[in-house]
């Protein structure tokens, strides 16, 4: 099966800054792919190169098998991109913008009008079809950008931080909408800093850091490979943890809550030893909870902190 997007040794420099240093991976057709990484990792740069908005210095890139340079028309026809920035054309209304965008992709007529109506309905923009973009809230502008990216029915859709600065309700709606697109057969590429979002939606994940791929796996493998689990203990009384036990503490709850979270290696550390140690330290055990690693834990492990 051809990959939806095939990235082959792509590098990009901005002056002395190596934004991408030889990145290679494939995004399988039909996948819901999470592209994760801290600020400045190179996610948007990579997306811009796929979309032809930025030139790569070296490497090759194909969308549904079409080279993004030598077969740019087919590559772009297969791709819908929701940019990270809330950009818009101040001259036109939402509906005019959508018709223009469809026209750029060679589409017009009754079919397009039907699809535009459907998009406006799905994204809850029907009441705003004659509004100028300037007059819309940030969340609405984001939805218009999504409609614009989908107006030519591309099989591959890339969303660059669609849920940044978006309220809970709209975030839920966008999750629902992207899931629906995925179920209808679209390949979805999503970047986000909300790791629980990637965990909930994506089936395959790449972690980018400093222009390098740090990890590339199915989500389940990635989570399973994480060698730790977490034990959260509620204590009361006063005590002093021993040195080795203190080293296993991953976080403390709020001051006075008595909550302590330990990060235990699945093979090396044993829960029994931890509980004994806590008792020996002088605490009373009030409650114990286990937690499996989340994508966030994996992420922190791999990038050393910033999400």
């Amino acid at each position, binding site marked *: 099966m051809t990959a939806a997007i095939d990235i082959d040794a792509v590098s990009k420099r*901005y002056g002395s800054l190596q934004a991408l240093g030889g990145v290679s991976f494939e995004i399988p057709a039909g996948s819901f792919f999470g592209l994760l990484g801290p600020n400045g990792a190179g996610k948007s740069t990579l997306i811009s190169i796929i*979309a*032809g*908005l*930025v*030139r790569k210095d070296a490497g090759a890139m194909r969308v549904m098998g079409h080279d993004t340079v030598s077969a*740019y*028309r*087919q590559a*772009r*026809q297969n*791709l819908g*991109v929701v*940019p990270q*920035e809330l*950009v*818009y*054309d*101040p*001259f*036109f209304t939402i509906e005019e*913008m959508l018709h*223009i*965008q469809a*026209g*750029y*992709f*060679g*589409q*017009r007529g009754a079919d397009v009008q039907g699809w535009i109506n459907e998009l406006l309905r799905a994204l809850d923009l029907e009441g705003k079809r004659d509004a100028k973009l300037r007059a819309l809230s940030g969340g609405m502008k984001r939805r218009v950008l999504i409609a*614009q990216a989908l107006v030519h029915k591309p099989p591959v859709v890339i969303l660059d931080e669609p849920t940044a600065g978006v309220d809970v309700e709209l975030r839920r709606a966008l999750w629902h909408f992207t899931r629906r697109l995925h179920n209808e057969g679209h390949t979805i590429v999503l970047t986000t800093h909300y790791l629980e979002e990637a965990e909930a939606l994506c089936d395959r994940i790449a972690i980018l850091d400093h222009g390098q791929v740090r990890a590339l796996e199915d989500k389940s493998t990635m989570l399973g490979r994480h060698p730790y689990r977490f034990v959260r203990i509620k204590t009361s009384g006063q005590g002093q943890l021993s040195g080795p036990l203190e080293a296993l503490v991953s976080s403390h709850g709020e001051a006075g809550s008595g909550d302590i979270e330990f990060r235990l290696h699945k093979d090396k550390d044993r829960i029994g030893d931890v509980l004994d140690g806590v008792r020996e330290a002088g605490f009373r055990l009030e409650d114990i909870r286990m937690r499996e690693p989340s994508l966030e834990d994996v992420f922190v492990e791999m990038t050393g902190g910033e999400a």
Partner: protein
Amino acid sequence: MNRVGFVTLLRKEIRRFMKVVGQTVTSPVITSVLYLVVFGQVLKGRVEVYEGVSYLAFLIPGLMMMSVIQNSFANTSSSVTQSKINGNLVFLLLAPLSIFEIFAAFVLAAVLRGALVASCLYAVGWLFVPLPIAQPLHLLAMLFLSSACLAALGMIAGILADKFEHLAAFQNYFIMPFSFLSGVFYSIHSLPEFWAGLSHFNPFFYMIDGFRLGFFGVADAPGALSLGVVGGFLMLVSGICLGLLHTGYKLRP
């Protein structure tokens, strides 16, 4: 070729200036009419022009071409700069359009704006003095070539400019003086020899002079020369513009 895409972009660029027609058409027409009233009155009978051609009649084609020059330039340059600064240029850059389709759509829309301003001015000019056209084909060719030149030049400026001040500077220090000093208000034969000679190196002079030839059948330079110079200049600026688009300079960094 993406014909629908090209037509869409062309129509979009036309609608862009038609939505603010007061700024893009009416206002330049009014400015030119003011020139016509003031200079036409002040210089009436003083400036020696072609035989049988009143100064007012001489002035109108010059003002028409000056408007074409300024408005064609303004249309492409402001559109490109604005969408680049706003960021909405990405919608166009994401589309499966070739650089030539993009170039041609922008230039054609600007040519239409130039032609619209010129036609309005021509119509208003009739109120002052009737102005028959001696060589319509030559006139249309000059109008198209000149307007396309300035549209391409405007696109280049729009690509290079990082902010609107850059465009304003280009317009004020380059386009304005060159179009003013190209024989809008006088025949270069009335200039001292040195300045008259210098005018022959100014492509804007040929635009205005060749355009005037279309009206009167006489002008300072031969018609074929004007067509050739302006046509050549169009090839040059189009080549530069397409080259910039091809390298993606400042648009696809």
